[in-house]
């Protein structure tokens, strides 16, 4: 008889939940777009340029900033962005 070995699962055994993506914006014009600076050096240079371009295309731009790039954005900040903006762009690195 073949002996089978059983082991205990070392993982969290959590199943990831599927999240419905929010509706994509139809056009930049007339949309409110958030720009999230993650607080890395020179992120502002990139976002300033984006703000200029988006404004030229008729968007309203709101600027946000994480307290530090080493931690996830605080929940209040995420809520503020989601309640004020139709879309958000996050500047990820320097």
């Amino acid at each position, binding site marked *: 008889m073949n*002996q089978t070995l059983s*082991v205990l699962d070392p993982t969290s*055994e959590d199943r990831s939940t599927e999240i419905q993506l929010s509706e994509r914006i139809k056009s930049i014009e007339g949309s409110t777009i958030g720009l999230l600076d993650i607080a890395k050096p020179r992120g502002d240079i990139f976002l300033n340029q984006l703000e200029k371009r988006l404004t030229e295309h008729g968007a309203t731009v709101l600027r946000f900033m994480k307290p530090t790039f*080493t931690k996830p954005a605080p929940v209040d900040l995420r809520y503020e962005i989601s309640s004020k903006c139709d879309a958000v762009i996050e500047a990820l690195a320097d």
Partner: protein
Amino acid sequence: MAKHANGYELTDGISVVVNSECPTCQLTSDLLVELGTSGHVRIFSQDDPSFPTSAEWVRDDSELSFSWHNDVEAVPTLIQVVNGKEVERLVGWNRKEWERLLEIENLAPGLVDHKPGCGSLSVSPDRVDELEIKFGGRTFISRQVELASLEDEMEAMHDRGWSDGLPVVPPTESRVNRMLAGTSRNSDDIVAIIPPNLVECSVEKVAINAVMAGCLPEYLPVVIACLEAICTDEFNMHGVLATTMGVGPIFVVSGPITERLGMNSGINVLGHGNRANSTIGRAVQLVLKNVGGGAPGGIDRATLGHMGKQGFCFAEAPSPWENLAEGFGFSSEQNTVTAFTGEGPRILVDQKSRSPESLTRSLADGLKSTISTRMVLGMDAMLVVSPEHLSRFTDAGWSRSQFIEKLTELLMIDSDEIIEGAGGIEDGIPSTFGGNQLPKFRPGGLLVVHAGGPAGLFSAIIGGWLNGTKGSDPVTKEITL
């Protein structure tokens, strides 16, 4: 057919536990039959329900329930019970003792006077784990994963994505059960919330990963303390894991436990070769990956990484100086783990300094380049001082705080030399900081640890990562056994 040993409760009278393969049980078998037949004893037979004979008073204990529940360590064992309580227990054959207990004279005059017994099957190493799980009430929350009979179990661990690249020990129920004996905590206690997926991690999950890492059960409390230290807001393990910088958690164990666990604080202390040093940090990393979901190339975005991320743990050596944990308000008698976010160690060589002043200047010179010569205040460092370097200071009567004070004085940086553009280098601090003397490290940002082999005029720097609320602060936790 012998009756099955229903239940394991002791009943009034004398019970004898035997095993047919034990020479002492064989020697006394005729006597046992005589005593059973005359109603003086009932027998619990561990391996053969027809030994010493088939009779109503011989109970089948092949499940070892009676033996296990009554802590029988050897056969034959005589247990005397009066009014439901055990009053005496004899082990092996000893005519005088048996005569006294049974209140019968002249027992088996043909036998030798005494003969020691054999080990009980209920404590045999190949049965004890199975019995502990079966009767000890151990239940596992984790899913059982059955491996196919043709699967190589070592390969199976890799195939399921559970390894860190090196072979892991398959976490069978018996191994995990043995591991759990290393802590007094309940297996379903939650140790910490593990980033990045913020998963509640039970003692059992830690034990499974500790088995896989190759830990001994006595290391488990240290692994638990390590996880408690890094899964805090101050340590910010999420950021340490996700950063592109090549850093990881480094654990320094202080206190009497280091000797008890046989940890290395001497030769090759920051290297390989010691089981506790090598597997404690590895177990933590396996938890982060398997439970927290922080896999390299996934949430772990390190551009370069370093080999210490396989697991980086070492013991502090005893010294005349106060230890690292004392610097954080613990006593030298407490067993602690200090977690620090750091890169790989780098050697500082100074083989000629004889005076403490000279060696301090030399070490300060080396420390200035920690992370980058352009970096001040934002990142901490750990300085591992070897015994021969340490003696330069202790011989001259310097204390640890004196040493750090002198180093700090020497670690003032002329900001003009490190502003953006200075020396033709674009990186640097903003030019508005020019014209200042700036400290290389924030107060308390230099962690001094004593460790290393007895010979060799070397120390080591372990550079840190962003400190304070924007990054990671060192965290010390007491180890609870």
